[in-house]
């Protein structure tokens, strides 16, 4: 039992942090926001120069063979810069294939994902399946318009569908969080490649998705606090730095109190999944709900504590705020995750 990063993990964290701070600048992110929500150059550097996209994929298939803890570190530092990257699709699609694919499917798809093929993952219960021909509509697919490959399914099965397959149509939506625009993906007798164990694949996708967005939320929350702390030191009113006012200090302290718990939650969940601990389901629901709420609180406070400038388009506060709100709603909202925890400790409600 040692709940701290190893030296190797610290190095990964430092590398990722330096990379995102230097490259995922506000200017570049805003350029991506005006397009399809992906900074292509950043993604290419991340996947090919740093070779980090395969960090949690098996070594046999070109990955680094590390786990969710290391992936969470990447997502944390990407989230801290609100980087416009298809990390969520990578996390979900690659873990779905790693968990539910045949060896041949892993050998074919994992190296492609590690090399930067953009993926999106979504589920729907209303899917009709005729052989390997799929028909149905998937709503709110994150980065759906940019995706080159989809992992789609439900508890009955999971399929890999390529964007260019006949019968696939994608309609993108103007989305509040422009760093992760949603699309509607409609299949009309589109050819799918079934994964060997669809239920297992979709379960792994959900877990990886929860960890990814929880870790992004942790990074975003910490950054919202750090930037607000910086502002508190430089902004002067009534002849003193506004950070010297107790009403202001205490709100910063409250942000830190939540963030420290979110940090415990995210790495508890990632570690529990890596160690296949029986606590993993509890940890995942805790992490997703707690980290998302923490991020939203901190991003909201970031706007409030910056005053008027925080409400402008020019300031980055709204990028954090919108990302936080999107994370709260996606992949099960806080009430849903807490109800799962309630069911674990109380049983089903009568």
């Amino acid at each position, binding site marked *: 039992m040692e709940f701290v990063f190893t030296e190797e993990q610290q190095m990964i964290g430092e590398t990722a942090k330096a990379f995102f701070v230097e490259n995922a600048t506000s200017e570049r992110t805003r350029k991506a926001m005006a397009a399809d929500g992906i900074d292509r150059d950043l993604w290419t550097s991340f996947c090919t120069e740093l070779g980090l996209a395969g960090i949690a994929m098996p070594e046999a298939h070109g990955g680094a063979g590390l786990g969710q803890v290391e992936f969470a570190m990447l997502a944390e530092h990407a989230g801290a810069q609100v980087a416009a990257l298809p990390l969520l699709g990578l996390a979900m699609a690659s873990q779905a294939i790693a968990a539910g694919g045949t060896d041949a499917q892993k050998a074919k798809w994992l190296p492609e994902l590690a090399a930067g093929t953009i993926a999106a993952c979504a589920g729907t219960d209303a899917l009709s399946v005729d052989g390997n021909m799929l028909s149905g509509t998937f709503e709110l697919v994150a980065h759906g318009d940019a995706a080159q490959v989809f992992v789609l399914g439900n508890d009955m099965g999971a399929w890999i569908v390529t964007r260019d397959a006949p019968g696939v149509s994608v309609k993108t939506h103007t989305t509040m969080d422009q760093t992760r625009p949603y699309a509607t993906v409609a299949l009309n007798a589109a050819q799918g490649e079934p994964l060997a164990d669809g239920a297992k694949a979709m379960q792994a996708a959900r877990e990886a998705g929860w960890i990814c967005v929880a870790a992004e939320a942790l990074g975003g929350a910490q950054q919202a606090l750090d930037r607000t702390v910086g502002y508190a030191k430089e902004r002067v009113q009534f002849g003193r730095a506004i950070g010297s006012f107790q009403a202001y200090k205490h709100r910063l*302290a409250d942000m830190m*109190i939540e963030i420290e718990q979110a*940090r415990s*939650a995210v790495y*508890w969940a990632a570690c529990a999944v890596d*160690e296949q601990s029986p606590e993993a389901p509890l940890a995942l629901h805790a992490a997703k709900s707690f980290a998302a709420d923490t991020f939203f609180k901190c991003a909201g406070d970031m706007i409030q504590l910056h005053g008027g400038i925080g409400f402008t388009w020019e300031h980055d506060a709204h990028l954090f705020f919108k990302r936080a709100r999107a994370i709260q709603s996606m992949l099960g909202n806080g009430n849903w995750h807490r109800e799962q925890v309630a069911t674990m400790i109380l049983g089903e409600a009568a």
Partner: protein
Amino acid sequence: MKLGFSPADEDFRRECADWLNGQMAGEFKDIKGISTLTEKAERRKEWEQQLAAHKWSCIGWPEAWGGRDATLAQQVIFAEEYARAGVPGRVNHIGVELAGPTLLAFGTEEQKKRFLPGIAAGQTIFCQGFSEPGAGSDLASVRTKARLEGNEWVVNGQKIWTSLAHISDWIFVVSRSEEGSKGPKGLTFLMMEIDQPGIEIRPIKQINGDAEFNETFFTDAKCPADSLIGAVGEGWKIAMGLLAFERGVSTLGQQMGFRNELNEIIAAAKANGAANDPLIRQRLAKAEIGLQLMRYGALRMLSNTDHSKIDGAALTYKIQWASWRRSLGELAMDVLGQGAEITDSETYEWSILPNLFLYSRADTIYGGTNQIQRNLIAERGLGMPREPRGDV
């Protein structure tokens, strides 16, 4: 990063659990499940000695001083199994967790020899003389005076909120030894024997009807000249060093007590149907998540060996658990309903959950109020300007 325990640790867990469960089913059956610090105090002093007789009283201490040099994982395990077995809180918590480590860090060899064996043996019970009527949040403004007369320190003044002073043998006292000094300067840290004519203890009745805290009066109270820890005038440094030990492994044992309380609420909610109320379900889930995050926060804090940087988990820990527990008390009352307003006892005594509701109002006050905690977090953790001092 690793959460699992090794097979050897799991063996150790079984050893702890077997011994503790055996004691709670046998000779010390009568103290099992006691949730206040004051009930059956004499029996609980005997329990301290029983722990010592089997080398369980201070497992984290060095072997040379009666400990086991236990690893972090072992200390975590013992704290968890201790509470899981329903063993009541340690009446010598202050001796084992605060006075002992302070002596080990700052005491002379002679002082270690004088005090540590008694603490380890469960024979010497300690209490803490820090707060005063005029020195609460502003601890450095203590006025209790100490002056050296020949071979003795002579102490005059008053301490307050001295938890368990009425059953303790020794008290450590932060006193002002330099006439006219102010704030953290000019303070000296003294160890004083309580059983003497110059020290008087008066209990303070609390809102839950119990009296765990006391006022302690010093009227020409005396201790030998070599009773100070550190040097004359270094009292603040020693006191702050001592408070750092408060965030040690014992926090995990404290958390297991919280676990028992939450489990009681869960059982009550299942029994009376509150468990079907969606709002109660959300609150219980939040309480469960909060408790788990406290556990993992504590494990982060205890695993951390890099003390060159501010440890956010440690800095935010006090306000986190205190606020969590206060909410838990409120949740308990909502789950129990109006019936929780009455007690079966003929006196003003409360079962575990109503008592939790009342007692937890103290948690957000003692050991640094939530407001002082927020100041500390903002100033030490985030580098915000310090609160200005007044001159009233």
